[in-house]
């Protein structure tokens, strides 16, 4: 075909598209939501269908304190990201550290609950359907908290080394999106396991 002689028109100034990091994270969160949905469906489907004990009513205790820890960490990470955007790096680091502490506390709560269930009530993943679905669903969430904590800690280390700048706040926002997702999923898991499932 004949060679193209004309050039493309000039680039308009106002061409702006969404930040790819945010789009990518939104898609990841979407995929994670689907995965959690399947586990939640399995949990609800099997409520009350265990052939042997222990049952949720007998052994589960509602982890109110640790839930408050996790949910309030959403607030601290949001404020931290805002502070970084405004250039207040010291305050950012402090709140970031606080977020990690809250997340770690939550994880400690889960560990303690599992320890109690395993050693006091003899409930393991292979005991009955409740054990299988409970450890899978709560474990899947704990896995996401752990992954989030590792990523948050990496940012903390970079921050302590003086390498986190306000210019990077868009990237910190992406991480904060993920953390909000982990918290939001806990609301669902909490409702399913500790409210509806008992």
């Amino acid at each position: 075909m004949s060679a193209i002689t004309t050039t493309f028109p000039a680039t308009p100034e106002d061409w702006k598209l969404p930040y790819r990091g945010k789009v990518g994270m939104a898609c990841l969160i979407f995929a994670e939501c689907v995965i959690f949905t399947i586990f939640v469906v399995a949990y609800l489907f099997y409520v009350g269908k265990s052939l042997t004990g222990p049952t949720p009513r007998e052994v589960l205790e509602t982890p109110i304190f640790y839930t408050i820890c996790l949910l309030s960490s959403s607030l601290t990470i949001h404020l931290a990201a805002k502070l970084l955007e405004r250039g207040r790096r010291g305050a950012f680091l402090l709140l970031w550290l606080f977020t990690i502490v809250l997340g770690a506390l939550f994880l400690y709560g889960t560990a303690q609950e599992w320890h109690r269930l395993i050693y006091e009530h003899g409930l393991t993943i292979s005991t009955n359907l409740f054990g299988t679905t409970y450890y899978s669903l709560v474990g899947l969430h704990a896995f996401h908290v752990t992954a989030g904590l590792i990523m948050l800690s990496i940012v903390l280390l970079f921050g302590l080394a003086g390498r986190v700048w306000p210019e990077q706040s868009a990237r910190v926002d992406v991480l904060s999106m993920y953390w909000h997702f982990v918290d939001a999923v806990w609301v669902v898991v909490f409702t399913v396991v500790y409210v509806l499932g008992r």
Partner: protein
Amino acid sequence: MSSDAIPIQAAEAAGRPWVETLHEWVTTVDHKRLGILYILYALFFLVVAGLEATIIRIQLMRPHNDFVSPQVFNRMFTMHGTTMIFFVIIPVMFGFANYLVPLMIGARDMAFPRLNAFSFWLTAFGGLLLYFSFVGGNGLYGAGNAPDVGWWAYAPLTSRAFSPGHSSDYWTVALLVSGFGSIGTAINIIATIISMRCPGMTLGRMPLFAWLNLIMAGMVILAISPLTAAQVMLAVDRYMGGHFFDTQAGGSATLWMHFFWIFGHPEVYVLVVPAFAFLSEIIPVFSRKPIFGYPVMVGATACIGFLSLSVWAHHMFTIGMNSYANGFFAITTFAVGIPTGIKIFNWLGTMWGGRIQFKTPMLFCIGFLFQFLIAGLTGIMLGTAPFNWQLSGSYFVVAHFHYVIVGGIMFALFGAFYYWYPKITGRMFNETLGKLHFWLFLIGFHLTFDVMHIPGLLGMPRRIYTYEPGRGWETLNLLVTIGAFVQGIAILVFVANLVVSYFKGAKAGNDPWDAWTLEWSVSSPPPAYNFASVPTVASRRPLWDLKHPEDPDSRYE
């Protein structure tokens, strides 16, 4: 806008040690190279899965045949199905999306090049794991090697009691790993299309190829994620003694069926939407007309994507659901026919009144239109619950979905191979060999899969390794097997054409088809980073605007 400004690749390519070239390919994050890797990887597995199909067909050629043992037969159909879906069609579609989407939307690479490479290598590793089962599947119990539980791996076949050793674990882990790769690539495609479009490339001006791949990527996320979750549950059952699908402890085998088909049916549309994307690019160019009904095409595809999420249980009519569920899933299944029909009419509308050029890519697309229509009609038959009760699990079903996948998707795929071959390699393919491939494959396809409906109607169940003589199935099965060999010969012609043309083909130039999308504005093969200067577009057919400045599309859109 000239791509000659960056001739780096060609100058450096001559006289380098092969280790360096290999290293470059293994460590590459370039979307075009990863696209080619995906495509070559899929072609390799196409040959492997084709050989498995051949073994199946030789075994079924005549009654009481003992070409392979029943155990090997089970492994062959399991591996054939799993390989074809997960390691042939998904990777090849991702390969084309990877190669073409950035070029079409005027971007220099995908949004996340390293995630792209990571996803490819995950998929590649998944395929290796699946096939390593032939060696490593024996495990501790000395039972079985490759997975033999069927591609949908129904519980309780996959439980430890019925599937000792590690063969099912290889299946689970291979699909889990490649599933992560698929989700990674899908995220990448969406982020690329949302965030990397060149100036002026509004969503309404994107080539339909980009639109349809955007929808495909969204469906990959929706479809593969449930499979990932279900595979994790299966692994928990097999390795930690969980009870998700363990009926002995109150678990449910039906739950696995639901989870699998919540993945399984949207998956069919994940595979066919990119095929639609190929058609939507090829048919306008060879009809010399812009696509008919662009917004409707986008809407219809989105509608198919939406509907496909609510049809999964039409695979499960025979498990005994109540009549409301049967009715619901039958109606949603019929409803898919509406947007699909809209699309077929739009392609016909594009061809209507055009100056159609019957080149090889166009021939394959026309074949698609006929065969996909028939496949859709048998689909509606099978979507009718009472009809399904009669024919579920028979060769009629096998014939139906091969009509979709071979007669539809594979035909579109071959069209795409011929259409973009000049762009990817810089050489023209041999048109005579291409037409020979088309006609041979068409004859082989119809011999195999038209005939295959009949033994299904006569009651031949799928997955049997042999059958009794005197049921009227012998001649039909022999014909099916002969057709399979004709298809095999056609594939050899195709591969020979690809290889020979790569060395001997005429130089293609930038734009051999006089096409209208941005990938044809750069050299063939495109230079690293694609565009010397990022293009700006003003209509759906930017190259038309460039070639016809006196009458650009932008005046009318």
